[in-house]
């Protein structure tokens, strides 16, 4: 593997590939910092706490049956399985997949402007995350 462009990420919601409606995608993995600084410490001390990943998507909306809007708006308040593959194609040790369960905590079905395509920007909390090198 070498340096690669980030423009071939596969985005799969359930069983639907919506890659051609996505302009930006990012998965941020963050761990809570839990302070355990004691009286005898001279520098703050930390341990890692629970992970709080977030999936950010910039999407072009589409009201077609089973397309972007139906997938997300129908799942509002519930969880969706979403899979990302850094470079669309075969999953491997150098191209791992990230499969996650995301709470659809917000959705913007209507977002109009005179000079822009209808788009949606969402930041979804991830409630389960698996990294795989084989599927």
């Amino acid at each position, binding site marked *: 593997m070498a340096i690669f462009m980030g*423009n*071939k990420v596969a*985005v799969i919601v359930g069983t639907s590939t919506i*890659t*051609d409606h996505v*302009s930006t995608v990012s998965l941020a993995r963050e761990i809570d910092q839990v302070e355990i600084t004691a009286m005898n410490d001279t520098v703050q001390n930390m341990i890692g706490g629970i992970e709080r990943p977030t999936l950010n998507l910039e999407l072009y909306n589409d009201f077609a049956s089973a397309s972007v809007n139906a997938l997300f708006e129908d799942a509002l308040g519930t969880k969706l399985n979403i899979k990302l593959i850094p470079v*669309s194609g075969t999953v491997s040790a150098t191209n791992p997949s990230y499969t996650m369960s995301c709470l659809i905590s917000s959705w913007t079905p209507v977002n109009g402007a005179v*000079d822009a395509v209808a788009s949606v920007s969402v930041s979804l909390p991830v409630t389960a995350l698996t990294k795989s090198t084989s599927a």
Partner: protein
Amino acid sequence: MIPSTVRTNLKTALQTITGMRVFDYVPDSTNIPTNNAFAIVGQLSMNYDFTLNRGFDSATCQVIVVVGRMSEKDGQSRLDGLIASSGSTSIKTAIEADKTLSGAVQTLRVVSASPGTITSANIDYLSYQYSVELIG
């Protein structure tokens, strides 16, 4: 997005304006009309990777419309109808009537129309240059 299909379908859309003669390529030469207008669908300016994994691209297409001599009052009147935002002779209305161009693109928008001149045989002709944004 297949550029040749886009140009062909833009030509078809423009031909819904009665009397409009349309080229979907830049002609070597042509007779400037004296009693109507003609349009040239120009080449596409492509911007690749509008969405991920080669999903869709965006492009801008210039459409040049020529009506008649600068000094001709009728030509100026015809331009009024062509640059109107609505009506049977409106170029914006004709192009945006089917925003997918029969499925050739996802969507489009006629963004602007700028006045100018085209010189042929040492005669200045009234023209307008339209900018059409396409995604597909």
